[in-house]
């Protein structure tokens, strides 16, 4: 049936209309089968039998409803005669209909239509390696090791800091005890009395405004004539250099 029915998805056959003339002698037995093979299963998808036994032959024009059988199930068709007699002028027609929304994506107006772009976006799955169980296990393992290292480090740090604190405390304890001694206090007072400590440590600096006191007499500074000569020579040399690139 590939060359009879259009190759269109959603096509269903609703009626088979056939016509032929049975040529026979009236007393003879004759069965005529109009049939189509089933593509999906052994046997026929359609088979209609006309019994002409004991009756005169004639032309039959028959419409057989087939209740919308999908087009892709229809196999090769044939007319088979059982008994005595022949079939002439045979023709078989298939009345079919096409369901335009069989594939909802064929038309945006079809129910169930989905925007292809949205579908594409849904289909694109970003692979996050962190979701991989193997990688996650490895990361967990490393994290555990790091935690263990961190704990060890913290323990070491705690131990080291404990030692430092001990040393500082011991030093401070020495200083404090030294300061607490009367001898040290006397020495500190002596240092202050000797002005060993700069005055600025305990005297405020005046915040007065210092005005410009230097005055230029005449107010006119003449140009240096020798300098002008040098400047002119430099200008000449500069122009000579600039012109040299155009002379060649």
């Amino acid at each position: 049936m590939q060359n009879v029915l259009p190759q269109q998805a959603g096509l269903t056959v609703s009626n088979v209309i056939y016509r032929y003339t049975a040529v026979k002698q009236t007393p003879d037995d004759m069965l005529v089968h109009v049939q189509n093979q089933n593509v999906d299963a052994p046997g026929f998808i359609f088979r209609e039998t006309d019994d002409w036994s004991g009756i005169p032959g004639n032309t039959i024009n028959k419409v057989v409803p087939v209740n919308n059988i999908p087009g892709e199930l229809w196999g090769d068709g044939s007319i088979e005669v059982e008994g005595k007699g022949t079939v002439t002028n045979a023709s078989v027609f298939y009345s079919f209909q096409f369901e335009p929304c069989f594939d909802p994506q064929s038309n945006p107006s079809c129910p169930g239509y989905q925007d292809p772009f949205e579908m594409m976006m849904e289909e694109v799955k970003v692979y996050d390696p962190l979701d991989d169980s193997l990688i996650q296990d490895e990361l967990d393992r490393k994290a555990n090791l790091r935690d263990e290292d961190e704990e060890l480090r913290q323990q070491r740090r705690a131990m080291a800091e404990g030692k430092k604190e001990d040393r500082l405390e011991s030093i401070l304890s020495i200083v404090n005890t030294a300061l607490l001694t009367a001898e040290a206090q006397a020495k500190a007072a002596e240092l202050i009395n000797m002005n060993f400590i700069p005055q600025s440590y305990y005297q405020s600096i005046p915040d007065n405004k210092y005005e410009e006191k230097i005055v230029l007499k005449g107010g006119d500074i003449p140009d240096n004539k020798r300098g002008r000569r040098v400047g002119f020579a430099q200008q000449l040399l500069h122009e000579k250099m600039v012109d040299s690139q155009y002379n060649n």
Partner: protein
Amino acid sequence: MFKKSLAVLATIIGMNAAAEEVMITGTVASKCVITTDTVGVYGNPTPSELSTAPADGGVLPIVRYDVLQANFYKARITYPESFSESPGLSDVVTWTGEVTVAEVTDAGMSAYDTNKVEFNNVTEVDLTIAGSTWFQIESTADYGVGKAFPAGTYRAVVSADCIAL
């Protein structure tokens, strides 16, 4: 006094009596439909003969009977025995005809040809199978004894009826 009482009683009864008429309607659509499939044409093989046979240059008229219910109707087809329109004819016209089954929608209808009843110019067929049957009517008119038909237009009518059994 008695007459008066009777009259009053009758009046009371008359006042209490009531009547209603309820309408029932229904429509029956025929389950037998006759359709002209092909209009016939007379051929003129010889000057004295008019015939619908294709061999004589004519066209057989065909009528189709569509029966939705089997065994409820019979077809009655009458081939013509006179012209409905013709030039003036001074001699006798001899009519012959035949009604046969031309096409069927069920093989069993082919038996109508053997089971039909023919009398005079009438053919009756019991429509025992639901479906469509095409009947073709052959009609021949012979004028006089080898006499030529006058020139002109000739018309005859085939009558096809569906009669409820």
